[in-house]
Structures are given as C-alpha cells and as structure tokens.
C-alpha cells in the first residue's frame, strides 16, 4: 500500500472509503479498558453511528482493540488472534499502559510497549479513556485508513522476524501454529 496519500489510486480511495465506514471490532476485552467499550457501543455514545460494531470472531474482525495492559499470558492469545485476522486489519492501543507500561510499568507480568510485539495504528491516551476519546481514536483511524496510512499489517509482514524475536522474548513456550495470509 503506498504511503503517500497523493499517490493513491482512485481504486484505493474508493476501497479505503468503504473500509473506513465498516470497522468490526474484535470482541476481546484484554484489560481493564474493556469496561468503557459497552458504554461506547450502546445507546449513550452509540459508536455504530460510525459503522463500528463488535464482532465475535477474529477472522471476521477488522480492528483489534487492545484495551490496556497485556499480561504475557494474554499477549500470546492476542498475537494468535491478530494473526488469524484477515487483511485489512488494524490495531488500536487503548490506554496509557499500551504506550509505556502505564501504572503497571514495574509489573513482572505485563508487557510495556505494545508496538514492540504487534504493530499499532492509533493510540488513545488515558487511564482509562472516556468513550469520547475512544470515538476520537476511531475517527483518527478512519482518517488514516482514508489516507492509506494505516499500514500496520503490512509492517508486521515485512518485519515479522523482528516482531517474532520480541514476542519470543516474553513468550517462553511458543507452541502456536503459523498463519499464512
């Protein structure tokens, strides 16, 4: 996918416009941030106005919302879920702990920098972010998609070895299948 927005082909523009208005979020509450997802999705903030809705299975989902810290045990499952997701796929880092460890910066069981393990397209700051901030995050993601800049999945494929090395540093028993996209 070209990085420069001026060089997008008309096909891409149409494709991206379609994509950005139908973001299916994988229903995976990985951390405490999951508690602000129900208010965002239900009547009060109603994220479906933006074509954002939950999806139960990774293969049908577009967005992986990492809601906060990831324990190493969860990281393994998140990687597996992420690799099962089909292109196009995006990752939103939700909350301070995905950026630099947050308040769990000295915990022995949570990863600190999410982008070392899976590519992240947008970060939403906060502990925890309000529904408004979550919606802003999604709008930012839509903007990036429209501009063709949300290319985390491509980066992941290109730098798979680097990501794998980081992942294996914390996941000691790597007994997962490899997925081919």
């Amino acid at each position, binding site marked *: 996918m070209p990085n420069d927005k001026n060089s997008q082909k008309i096909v891409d523009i149409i494709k991206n416009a379609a994509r950005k208005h139908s973001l299916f979020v994988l229903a995976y509450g990985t951390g405490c941030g999951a508690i602000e997802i129900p208010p965002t999705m239900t009547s009060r903030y109603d994220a479906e106005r933006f074509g954002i809705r939950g999806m139960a299975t990774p293969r049908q989902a577009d967005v992986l919302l990492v809601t906060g810290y990831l324990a190493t045990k969860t990281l393994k499952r998140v990687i597996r879920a992420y690799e099962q997701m089909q292109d196009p796929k995006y990752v939103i880092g939700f909350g301070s702990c995905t950026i630099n*460890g947050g308040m769990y910066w000295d915990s022995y*069981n949570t990863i600190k920098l999410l982008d070392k393990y899976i590519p992240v397209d947008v970060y939403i700051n906060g502990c925890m972010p309000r529904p408004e901030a979550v919606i802003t995050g999604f709008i930012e993601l839509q903007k990036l998609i429209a501009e063709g800049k949300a290319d985390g999945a491509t980066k992941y494929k290109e730098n798979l070895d680097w990501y794998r090395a980081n992942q294996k540093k*914390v996941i000691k028993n790597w007994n997962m299948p490899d997925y081919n996209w």
Partner: protein
Amino acid sequence: MTENSLDKEQQIVNHLVGTFQNLTGKVKRNRRIEVSIEKKQITSVLNYVKDHLGFIHFSHMSCVDWLEDGYFELVYILWSPEQKIQLLVKALVDRENASVENADMIWRQLNTYQREIREMFGVNFIGMKGDKEFILEDWDNMPPMRRDFNTVDYIQEVYFERPGREDAQNVRETISKRTGEEIPEVATKYSRD
C-alpha cells in the same frame, strides 16, 4: 446486643487455648479473634473450629513473607455466620523448603488459595491436587511474590522501556551541582529517592 462486651469472643479464645496445646489467642476487638498455632496443627484446628465452634464460612487465606525473619506466615480467615465472629488462624512456616499439610478437604475452595500460594510463594502443600500453573504461564523465575524477587530488575531484563526520557534531572543533584555542595555519605541515605 453484646456490642461492647467481649465475653463471647473471650469464651471462644479460652476454649481454644484449653483445647489445643501451644495455641495462643487474643481478642482484637469485638467480633475479631486471632489465634496463633503451630504449623502441624493447621488441619486439626481448622477442622475443630469448623465442626464444633461454628466457623463454617471460609473467608480468605493469605500468606505473608517475613523475609528478614526467615518464615512465611499463613493466615486463615474464618467467619461464623451464627455468632458473627471473625477468626484469624495464623501459623508460621520456615521459608526454606516451606511445606504445609494440604487442607482443601475441609473447604474445597481452599484448593484455589493453596494453588495460588504455591505458585506465588513456593509453599508446598503436601498431597494437594490441581495444576501446577494457576495464574502464571511458563514462569521460570523465583516465585514472584517472595520479597527477594525484585520486579524492577526483572522488567529491565525482559521488557522494553520507551526512550526519550533520558534528559530527566534530579532536583537535589541539580542544586548541589549549582552550589558545589558535596553531600557526605552519612547524608546520602536520607536524600529523597
């Protein structure tokens, strides 16, 4: 209401002291009793208070690491729904090769607590069933809740830290550099961390 009189509590303590050797107990306040026992008495005391004194509700079990003194303190917290009294049963276990008798036949949920304490402190419960792994996965270090496990050393070794904050200054150092003050050794341990 016996809000202010501690007779009921004192009676239970006296009864327990009379029943078990090497058992010391005290009334902490109304509705709070604490007894200390030896580690080999754990199952017999727990069984006794459950069957005879009405402490049928098992509230909590905890373990405290007294690293400096060289022992773990196991704490069983029980509740008597009838008398509305909370009982703390405490027993000391040596830190070296800590092992205690399994008690999960008295309350089945004790199994969960014991599994956690086994994983987090390395206390062995003799004869306990259940998976070795409870919360952690593929953990190959010292049990993390032991006080000699240094979590900051561990994260520096295993995880990443985001760069960009290296220019942080220490206020004390900034000022002593500016004034040329030399802080002697006896003082540095009282400086702000």
